């Protein structure tokens, strides 16, 4: 057993540090990989083309993860098991660097195990319906299993190296699944864009890991936490560098501004992929990493935290605005995801370990729910565009109601889960002294509510504008929606400040089960004033949204195209406040949001593309100009010189034997003379 665990003995006797469930927990890391292999080799021959294997593996994982989750709820679990995979000499053999694989079970990873397994299971079941008749169902489930496995490795990793393996594994799965329809070039390009952006960020992760590994002599999170908790004297500088690099890595995976650009494009993948990977789990990997290495930021690298908060704040607000002008429903949700990741990152960066993770937890449910709902709609109308939807409320009641639950949760409406988690973030950020950022967060809540209202209104409200007759999704798709709607609605009650549920403690305490205390802030009671402001912002967003898009079905389409000049005089006549609001909305929506979108598409994307083009150009220059002409010219020049010399000598090489014989005899004479003379 890990001696470090002694440190965590604040809760004596209760803590589960051994036993079947934790000692064999590694199985849940392995089972999806086994499923992957089975599907690849046998999937095609099976009734559901391999989906049953994937679902079986995830069901197994869900059972196991739930068991761990319940154990953690009631008593807390803390366990770590590693197997050495390499041991190499270091610093001339005076030290050793040990590489290990294994798994850890503590509050944080238990929560993640549960989240990945449970949401994953529902999404997998949903996908059976969604992917029916797809070109490669088998491969889809294989790659999806690969993702689930990699994600579990990521969250179960007891050290940075294993985390990197899982990290890039999910990146690979993301690449494969975004480019699932690789016959079309834009899809495979979207996959590549995701991979490149993440790979760029991984430079930070890998270098950060290297610095940690070299400095501490181990990659273990427990050791890192312990050293950080002790204050690691003299390590501040190196810790700050490492922390900044690790954060850069997290920015890529968790789509933080300005590295968020890949996520909207990633919607090219099938919708279940977007739901599980690009909303609920994979993109939270960066937040998870920040949480896992939280003591480093909390105790050693305080210097980088303000920068992290600022980036998180920009992400949550500026990127969230973009959702307002999207027609593709999945892109609305994608920008929304980026924005919510910004909340989580801001919270963790500001010191709100619990707050950020709580939002991660609730967000996983409601965002997966929203994506699956959007998927059901897309499945019904065969289009991603909201301009082809409308009025679906009456055709698809289950989808509609669950979508509403998800939207309200996302918007942060009391008493849905998003309200509680967002409120805790705002409270924590405010408490840590980032008052401005707190207000940005409140503004973000407003925007969130606004675009969700718009999405709901354009999709379900009004009249149907597409072709054919939409119909409710099959049961295999609606059941997972309901399964997600329940936690999306009620998960927030798990962590109401000041309320202790009998027997199971609350979320804050579950997450506090780590080898060292996190020392983060969690509010002791609900700050009613702040909660009211947050809720008000969200409600305002909803109201504005309703007023703009939902109010009148007939003019909805025009207004969404923002024919502001026509509307503007009308508003001024009615309410001056309305005029002001509309001006604000216009300001936000037309010049500002579009400018942000423009910056997004032209400047940031432009820089990426430009860098790509520049690289291509540079590559062409290096290859064509330097390599083929320069270096090769020297080489070929040498060859040519030799050639010329050869041509000169060649006259001697007449091919006539007698010429050779003459040279030979002459040579003998010369040699004899030489010997004689120089003797």
């Amino acid at each position, binding site marked *: 057993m890990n001696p470090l665990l002694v440190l965590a003995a604040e809760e004596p006797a209760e803590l589960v540090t051994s036993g079947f469930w934790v000692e064999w927990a590694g199985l849940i890391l392995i089972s999806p990989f086994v499923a992957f292999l089975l599907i690849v080799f046998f999937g095609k021959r099976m009734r559901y083309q391999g989906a049953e294997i994937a679902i079986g593996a995830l069901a197994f994982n869900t059972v196991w993860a739930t068991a761990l989750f319940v154990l953690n709820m009631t008593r807390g679990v803390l366990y770590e098991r590693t197997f050495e995979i390499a041991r190499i000499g270091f610093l001339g053999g005076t030290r050793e660097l040990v590489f290990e694989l294994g798994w850890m079970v503590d509050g944080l990873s238990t929560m993640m195990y549960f989240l990945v397994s449970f949401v994953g299971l529902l999404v997998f079941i949903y996908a059976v319906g969604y992917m029916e008749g797809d070109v490669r169902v088998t491969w889809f489930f294989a790659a999806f299993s690969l993702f689930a496995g990699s994600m579990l490795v990521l969250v179960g990793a007891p050290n940075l190296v294993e985390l990197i393996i899982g990290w890039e594994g999910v990146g690979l799965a993301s690449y494969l699944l975004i480019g699932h329809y690789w016959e079309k070039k834009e899809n495979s390009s979207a996959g590549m864009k995701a991979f490149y952006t993440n790979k760029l960020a991984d430079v930070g992760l890998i270098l950060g890991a290297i610095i940690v590994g070299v400095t501490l002599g181990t990659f273990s999170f427990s050791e890192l936490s312990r050293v950080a908790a002790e204050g690691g004297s003299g390590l501040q500088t190196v810790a700050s560098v490492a922390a900044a690099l690790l954060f850069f890595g997290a920015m890529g995976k968790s789509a933080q501004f300005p590295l968020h650009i890949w996520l909207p494009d990633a919607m090219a993948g099938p919708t279940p992929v977007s739901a599980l990977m690009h909303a609920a789990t994979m993109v939270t990997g960066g937040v998870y990493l920040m949480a896992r290495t939280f003591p480093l930021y909390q105790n050693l690298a305080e210097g980088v935290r303000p920068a992290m908060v600022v980036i998180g704040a920009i992400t949550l607000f500026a990127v969230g605005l973009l959702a307002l002008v999207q027609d593709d429903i999945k892109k609305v949700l994608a920008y929304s995801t980026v924005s919510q990741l910004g909340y989580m990152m801001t919270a963790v960066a500001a010191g709100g370990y619990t707050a950020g993770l709580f939002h991660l937890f609730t967000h996983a449910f409601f965002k997966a729910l929203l994506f699956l709902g959007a998927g059901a709609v897309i499945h019904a109308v065969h289009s991603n565009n909201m301009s082809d939807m409308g009025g679906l409320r009456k055709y698809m009641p289950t989808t509609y109601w669950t979508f509403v639950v998800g939207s309200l949760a996302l918007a942060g409406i009391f008493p849905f889960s998003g309200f509680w988690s967002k409120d805790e973030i705002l409270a924590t950020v405010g408490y840590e002294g980032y008052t401005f950022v707190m207000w940005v967060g409140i503004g973000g809540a407003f925007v969130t509510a606004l675009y969700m209202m718009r999405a709901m209104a354009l999709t379900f409200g009004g009249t149907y504008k597409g072709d054919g007759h939409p119909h409710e999704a099959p049961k295999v798709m609606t059941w997972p929606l309901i399964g997600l709607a329940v936690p999306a609605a009620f998960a927030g009650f798990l962590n109401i400040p000041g309320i202790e549920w009998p027997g199971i403690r609350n979320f804050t305490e579950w997450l506090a089960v780590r080898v060292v205390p996190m020392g983060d802030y969690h509010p002791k009671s609900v700050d009613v004033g702040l909660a009211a402001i947050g809720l008000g912002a969200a409600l305002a967003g909803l109201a504005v949204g309703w007023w703009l898009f939902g109010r009148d079905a007939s003019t909805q389409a025009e207004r969404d195209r923002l024919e502001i000049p026509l509307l503007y005089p009308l508003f001024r006549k009615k309410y001056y406040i309305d005029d002001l609001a509309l001006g604000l909305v216009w300001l936000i929506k037309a010049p500002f949001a579009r400018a942000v979108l423009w910056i997004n598409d032209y400047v940031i994307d432009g820089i990426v593309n430009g860098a790509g083009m520049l690289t291509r150009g540079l590559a062409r220059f290096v290859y064509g100009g330097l390599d083929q002409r320069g270096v090769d010219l020297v080489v070929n020049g040498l060859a040519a010189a030799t050639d010329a010399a050869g041509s000169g000598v060649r006259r001697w090489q007449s091919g006539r034997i*007698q*010429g050779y014989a*003459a040279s030979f*005899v*002459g040579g*003998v*004479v010369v040699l*004899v*003379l030489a010997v004689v003379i120089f003797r």
Partner: protein
Amino acid sequence: MTFEVWISEPVNWVFIVVALAVAGTAVKVVTSQNVVHAVLFLVATLAGTAALFLLLSAQFVAWVLILVYIGAVIVLFLFGIMITRAPTGRGVGLDNDRKGVALVVSSALFAVLTWASLSAFGTAELVDIGEGTPTEVLGRALLGRFVVPFEIVGFVLLAALIGGITIARRDATPADEEGRGG
């Protein structure tokens, strides 16, 4: 030994005559523009060489030279000339146009060789040549101490014989068959 002493020995008069003949005919061997003449001059050169061997009391080698070379090899050459239809008349360009180079090289070689001989042996005399080597000694040497090289040389001759036949044999080609048929 002075020149006077040397010239006073009658055997050296004989040498001078033979040597002049050998050298003269050898020059003709490499300069004659008539192929058959060149071969016949070589016969003369070889005969002169045989005479020199007799001067040195190497009777057996001398006779071998005459028998093998003049008797067999020269005949072979004549056959070769006839088969290859080498130009037998005069002035048909039997030599190439690099005589100058060849002359320089061979003169230089001659100079070097002569200089080497002179500086190595000076005026060392051949003393007591006597009756020469009896054939018995040669026979014992060949079949005693040198029996293995002797056998190998025999084998080489055999191989050359077979090789010569194989190389020079005309394989029956389709064209030949045709020619014969027609």
